[in-house]
C-alpha cells in the first residue's frame, strides 16, 4: 500500500487545482468588472438561441440551372452577400452559415418571419443607372434634416 503521507497530500492538491480552475473561469467571465461586484450581473449572461428568445431561421438551398452542385466559391460569395445584407439591415447577433455543399442557414434574432424572408429570400439584383445628381458624403447634411441614430 502507498504510504499515508502521499495519500494525504494528493487530495488537497486536486481540490486546489479545481478551485483554481473555477477562479480562473470566474475571472474570465467577469473580465474587467472583476473587482466591481455590482456590475457582475451584466457579465453572467448566457446567449440564448432563437428557439429560447425570438427570431427567424431560414434555410436556403442553392439551385443551379443544370442541377449540378454549386461551386464552393459561388457559395461563399453568396454567403458573404447575404451576410452584408443582414448586417446592413442593422440586425445584431445574426448568423449566416453555410451547411454542407448547397445550404445556407440564416438566423435572425428578434426578426419576424415576413421581414426576414423578404430580407433573405429575394435574389440580389444588379442594375446599371446613369447618375443624375451626386453629393459627397463628407459634405454637411442639408439644413433642416436630421441625422439617423
Amino acid at each position, binding site marked *: 500500500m502507498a504510504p499515508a503521507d502521499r495519500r494525504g497530500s*494528493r*487530495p*488537497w492538491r*486536486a481540490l486546489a*487545482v479545481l478551485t483554481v*480552475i473555477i477562479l480562473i473561469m470566474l475571472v474570465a*467571465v467577469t*473580465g474587467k468588472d472583476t473587482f466591481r461586484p455590482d456590475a457582475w450581473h451584466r*457579465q*453572467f449572461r*448566457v*446567449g*440564448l*438561441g432563437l*428557439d*429560447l*428568445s*425570438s427570431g*427567424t431561421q431560414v*434555410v*436556403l*438551398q*442553392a*439551385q*443551379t440551372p443544370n442541377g449540378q452542385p454549386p461551386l464552393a466559391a*459561388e457559395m461563399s*460569395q*453568396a454567403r458573404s*452577400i447575404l451576410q452584408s*445584407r443582414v*448586417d*446592413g439591415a*442593422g440586425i445584431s*447577433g445574426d*448568423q449566416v452559415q453555410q*451547411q454542407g455543399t448547397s*445550404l*445556407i442557414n440564416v*438566423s435572425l434574432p428578434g426578426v*419576424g*418571419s*415576413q421581414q426576414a424572408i423578404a*430580407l433573405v429570400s*429575394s435574389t*440580389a*439584383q*444588379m*442594375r*446599371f*443607372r*446613369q*447618375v*443624375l*445628381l*451626386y*453629393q459627397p*458624403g463628407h459634405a454637411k*447634411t442639408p439644413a433642416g*434634416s436630421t441625422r*439617423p441614430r
Partner: protein
Amino acid sequence: MKLFRRLVCTPGKNGTVDSAWQATVGYTQQRAQWDDTGSQIVSCDAAGNKYVLDKAVFKGTDVTAVNAVLLPNSTQWAVEMTLDGAGSQAFGTLTTTQYNDYYPNAGTNEDDAVLDQTAMVLDGNVVSAPQTNTVIPSGQVEITGPSSNPFTQQQATQLANQLKYGALPLSFKQLYATSISAQLGRAALDAGLISGVLGLLLIVAYMFAYYRGLGLVAVGGLVIAALLSYLAVVLLSDYQRFNLELSGIAGLVVAIGITADSFIVFFERLRDEVREGERLRPAVESGWKRARRTILVSDTVSFLAAILLFHFAVSDVQGFAYTLGLTTLIDVAVVFLFTKPMMTLLAGTRFSVSRLARRATSRFGQLGGRLYRGEFSVNFIGRRRIWYAASGVMLVIGLIGLLVRRLNFSVEFRGGALFQFPAPAATSGQISRAMNSAGVGQSTIQQLGLHHTWQVQTQPLTTAQAGAVENALHHVLGIPLGSISPQLVGPTWGGNVTSKAAEALIIFLIVVVLYLSVAFERKMAMAALVALLHDIMITVGVYALVGFQVSPATVIGLLTILGYSLYDTVVVFDKVRENTAGPRSSYGQAANLALNQTLVRSLNTSLTALVPVASILFVGSILLGAGPLNDLSLVLFVGMLSGAYSSIFIATPVLVGMQERWPGNRSTGSISPRASSQSRRSARTSASGRSVLSSTRMPRSR
C-alpha cells in the same frame, strides 16, 4: 429632388453600405420602391455619398463575364466586364451621349461631371459609379480606379465579385423557415429550466436516499458540475458567440444522469472493495483504480457520440451534441478533481466509516452484497433463450407495426406549414374560418400545453400564402402579428436531415466497433453492436406501433440512444472481462456473476439516466404540449429503457454465446485480459451455457 434632400447617407462598416438610409427617405423592405427599374431612384454608397439615379439602362443579367485583371505594363488593377447584345447596345447608346455631351466639360462643369457617371447598383445600393471616358459600343468594358488612387488587387477583385453576383447563375430556394415569437421562446426557456431543476432535484433526492452520507459527496459533485457547466456556457457565449438553444438545455439535463452515474460507478466499486473485507482507506484507493477505467471508457464513448452528432447534425441539434460533449469533459474533471479527493479525505474521518457500515447492512445493500458474493444470483446467461425469444417477439411485432401502420412523420419530413400562436379565447371553429378566409382549405387544428397555444398545420405554402394566413389570424381573431410563430418546410428538408443522420449512424457504428475492439476485444464489440441494433429496432417498432410522431429531433434522439446504450453495456463488459480473467470458472459462469455484481449499479444507472429525461418529457408535455423537446425526450426515454434491458439481457448473453462458439483468441485487444489458458479451456468445456447458482466466489485479480 425632395427625396434627395431628405436622404441621409452614413458610411457603412467594412466597406458595406449602411442601409439605414432607406428609412430616411421612407423606402421600406418593398423591392418595388428602391429597385424600380422604370423610374429614378435615390441611393447611397459605402462611403456615404448620395446619388439620384436615372432609370436602369441594363441589368446584371446582361453581364456575361467579369474579371479582375492587372493592366499591362503597370501596377494598376482593373475590372473587365463583358455585356451581352442588349446590354452592349444600351450601354453603347448611354456612353455615346455621356462621352459626346458631358465628358468634354466634365473637368470644369460639375453637373456634366456627374452626368458622365454610370452607377452600378446592387440591391439598391451603389457599388461603384465610374466616369465614362470613351464611347463603348462593343460591350467590352474596362473599369479602372481614379488615376490619383488606382485599384488595388483586392479592390478590383471585390468589385468584380459584386458585379458577378448579378450575373451568377445561382439562385436560392427557401427550404425551411421557422419563426419563434417572444412568448413561445419564453415558454420554451421556462420549460427547459424547470425540467432541468426538477431533474436535478430528483437525482439529488435519490442520491441521499440511496447513499445517505456519501450522497453528500455526490450532490457536492453535481453542484460543482452544474457550476462548471454554467461558467463554461457563459464563457462560450462571450468568446465563441455560442447560443444556448432548447436542445442545448436538453443536453445539459441528460448530462445530469451521466454525472450522477460516474459517482455510482465509483461508489459501487468502493462498496465491492469493502465487501471484499478491505478496510475503507485502502478500499477507496483500490476501488478508484478500477472505477477510473470504467468512467474513462464510458465517457469516451459518450464524447465520441457527441462529436459525431455535432459533426453530422443539422443546426437544431448541434446544441444538444455541444453541451453533451462539454458536460462529458466536465464530468471527467469533477470525478478526478472533486469526488476522488473528497472520498480520500472522508475515508480518513470516522463519519463516513459509520455511514458506510450502516449502508452495508441495510436491506438493499444486503441484496447488493449477496448478489456480489454470488450467494444469490439470477441466471441471466443460462436463460438467455427466454430473453432472445422475448426480444424476438417484440421485434416481430414492431416489424409488423412498421409494415402495417408505418411511421407517423412530422411536417419536417412531409413538407408543409405550421403556425403556433397563443389565443386563450379562440375556438377551433374560428381558427378554421380564419384559415378559409386566407384561402387555405385543409388544415389540422390542435390545442397545445398550458399556455392556450394553438397549432395549425397545412399543406406546403408559399411565403405569400403564409403571410395571408398570418394576416387572416390577425384580422379574424385579433392575434398580434408578432405572436404568431410560423414554420414553412419544403418537402425535401426532412430528407436532408435523414440522410445526414444515416451517415452519422454508419460512421458511429464503425467508430464504436473499432474503439471497443481496441479497448476491449472484438467479440465484445460485436456483442455491443448487436445490442445497439436491437435498441434501434425496438425503438422504431414502438414508434410505429404507438404512432408517436417522428421529427428530426426524434432521429437525433435515436442517435443519442446509441451512445447511452453502449455506455451501459461498457460498464457490464468491464466487469465481465475482469471476472473472466480469473482462472477457475467457465466464461458463462464468470459473465453471469459479472451481470449480477453490476446489477444494482445497472439499475441505478438506468434510473438516474431516465429520471432527468422523464422530467423533460413531463414538464415539456405539460407546458409546451409539443415540439422538439418532447420529441427528443420521448425517443430517449423509449430507447434508454430498451438500452437498459439489452445491456443485461442481450449484450452479455450474446457475448457468452459467441465466446462459446468461437472460444479462440480472446486477447485481441491492446489491453489484453489476463486470461490464463486454464480459463479458456474451461470456457470451451461448458458449452451448455448453463451457469451455476452457487456461492462460488470469484477470485479477483489485483
